């Protein structure tokens, strides 16, 4: 009975804390500007099913892709097991779904296989990160915390899977010994192997081990749940909405700035009334996270820090400072900072800092707008749009373009071409033979 009460209290606290954080992050995302992203719902569902559920972009790198699918499938499917654990925990039962009979055996059997695959995949991931030291996991922006974050997650998953399999192993032995309430149920393709190492233990020890692992497993899951919102691991939730709200246009297209269109139309035709000019004037481009759209902010929270974007970025690969992953990490870190200050001091609070304190001009101007990053991102994040919005701010609000680009602008203004050529010579290509 006491165990049940403790369970219910801990469970409720974990859920409450988690939903508090989800609401907090939702609030921060909504600090962004509005953008319409709900056209073509059918296409959006398809994109989400393909990219998030179907992991279509993960498998372009087969090793990581397939291992990730193990972890991902394991994560989702083993959650059915968690459902049983919760019911058992609340009701004080043991293996409450056992009456499902053969189907139950099938379920437990598949959970075990998946648990083993998750275990193995996480081990390989740890080796790739820490022993093989894959380059993309050790670039500049992967400072101490992002690296530990990844390792904490992998180690936690390994511990959880170990607890789960050990719990089943002791349960399996206790079932064979017909001890107490350990009714015969489930099939144990993996843990029966583990059990063979434990067969010398007394039934009392086995009961203690089984109970310990049961509690460790469920408390570990609740702790993990609450770790996720502080981690790049939040992508396990956000990748779904983030792909649903993907940019469905051709990647080459940069969005049209309507506030500029309004002004340009006024300039070309001063008699036109400044219609729709009643909304508050907006800054051109982005200086801070508030100038980005909610979708760009959602991107930031969806980033898995996998570095696939950076590992194909032509600027980064040729030694420039720019890293699209860092753009996303900076955006998220700045949003966390600004959001927390708003939580404390009210909605209008600004600390005088901005995203441009984190992302330097040297990074911003190195981008070739090649879209390699957006193509590579497994959750359809768009770092390029943020880079362009920062450029827009620098150019239109601060006249801060590099001098050569300023010259290029002048040439377009003066002679309709980015180079010094006379408009009258445009047709000379026919005769220049």
């Amino acid at each position, binding site marked *: 009975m006491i165990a049940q009460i403790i369970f219910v209290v801990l469970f409720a606290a974990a859920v409450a804390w988690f939903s508090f954080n989800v609401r907090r992050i939702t609030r921060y995302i909504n600090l962004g500007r509005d953008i319409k992203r709900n056209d073509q719902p059918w296409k959006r569902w398809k994109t989400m099913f393909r990219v998030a559920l179907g992991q279509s972009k993960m498998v372009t790198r087969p090793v990581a892709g397939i291992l990730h699918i193990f972890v991902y499938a394991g994560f989702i499917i083993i959650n059915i097991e968690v459902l049983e654990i919760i019911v058992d925990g609340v009701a004080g039962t043991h293996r409450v779904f056992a009456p499902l009979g053969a189907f139950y055996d099938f379920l437990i059997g598949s959970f075990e296989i998946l648990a083993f695959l998750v275990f193995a995949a996480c081990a390989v991931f740890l080796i790739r990160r820490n022993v093989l030291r894959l380059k993309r996991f050790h670039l500049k922006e992967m400072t101490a915390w992002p690296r530990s974050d990844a390792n904490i997650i992998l180690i936690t998953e390994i511990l959880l899977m170990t607890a789960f399999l050990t719990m089943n192993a002791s349960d399996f032995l206790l079932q064979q010994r017909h001890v107490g309430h350990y009714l015969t149920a489930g099939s144990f393709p993996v843990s029966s192997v583990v059990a063979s190492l434990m067969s010398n233990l007394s039934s009392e020890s086995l009961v203690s081990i089984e109970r310990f692992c049961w509690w460790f497993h469920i408390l570990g899951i609740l702790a993990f749940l609450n770790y996720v919102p502080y981690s790049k691991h939040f992508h396990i939730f956000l990748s779904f909405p983030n792909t649903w709200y993907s940019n469905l246009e*051709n*990647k*080459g*297209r*940069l969005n*049209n*700035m309507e506030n*500029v*269109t309004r002004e*340009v139309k006024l*300039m*070309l035709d001063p008699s036109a009334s400044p219609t729709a000019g009643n909304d508050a004037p907006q800054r051109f*481009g982005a200086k801070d996270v508030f100038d980005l759209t909610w979708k760009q902010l959602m991107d930031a929270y969806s980033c898995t820090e996998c570095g696939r974007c950076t590992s194909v970025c*032509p*600027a980064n*690969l*040729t*030694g*420039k400072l720019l890293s699209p992953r860092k753009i996303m990490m900076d955006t998220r870190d700045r949003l966390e900072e600004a959001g927390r200050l708003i939580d404390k001091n009210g909605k209008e609070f600004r600390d005088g800092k901005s995203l441009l304190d984190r992302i330097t001009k*040297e990074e911003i*101007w*190195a981008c*070739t*707008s*090649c*879209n*390699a990053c*957006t*193509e590579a991102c497994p959750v359809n994040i768009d770092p390029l749009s943020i880079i*362009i919005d920062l*450029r*827009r701010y*620098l*150019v*239109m609000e601060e006249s801060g*373009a*590099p001098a*050569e*680009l300023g*010259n*290029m*602008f002048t040439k*377009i*203004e003066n002679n*309709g*071409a*980015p*180079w010094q*050529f006379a*408009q*009258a*010579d*445009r*047709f*000379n*290509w*026919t*005769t*220049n*033979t």
Partner: protein
Amino acid sequence: MDFKVETMAEYAARGETPEVLFWIGCAASFDERAQKVTRAVAKILHASGVRFAVLGTEESCTGDPAKRAGNEFLFQMQAMSNIQVLNGYGVTKVVTACPHCYNTLKNEYRELGGNYELVHHSELIQQLLDQGRLKVEGGHFAGKKITFHDPCYLGRGNNIYEAPRSVIHKLDAALFEMKRSREKGFCCGAGGAQIFKEPEKGNKDVNVERTEEALGLSPDIIAVGCPFCMIMMTDGVKSFNKESQVQVMDVAELIARAADL
């Protein structure tokens, strides 16, 4: 050139409209190397009996480099005046040999009142070959090794990967793919207004990295489909002192040569 390239104004004066407008673009109008490509495209269109016109001196920068460098004002000024000219002539279909112009005219003029059907020259050449309006003869490229460098704004930007390849397949040459091709194509380094400035500090130029990859296949020809890629890859080949062994050519030039134009 042994035929006259007509302008939209000349067509309009006769009360006629051409099949398609050939949008040249700044690089292809002014850069000497790119001008050769422009002439190759014009010859192909002419030889295939396509009734095409150009804007001539009425053409102006699409605004692509301004937009990508963050100057949306300048971009929209350019766009609106271009749209005025294009719509004034009732243009509906545009062919261009520049993927940047292609992208801007197709995707970024829409919201400002410009709706045009865009075809990249490689797509049009493919159609002309398929329809039999254009014929290429074998022999010119027998035994040659060609690799194709995907322009970002044609490939990832607008999902056109096959047209240039299928055009190259019409030659009796062998097409070799670089490891980074199609969706994974590696930039030449020119886009996003980079070509107009010095690169940021790094350990290599982007075009050198890309050319190195292409040269790894020991090709006779590096085929391109963009005037900016042409400039960057040509420079890249020079930086390896390989210009006597390896040519950088636009797909239009390959076809023009194969068709004896």
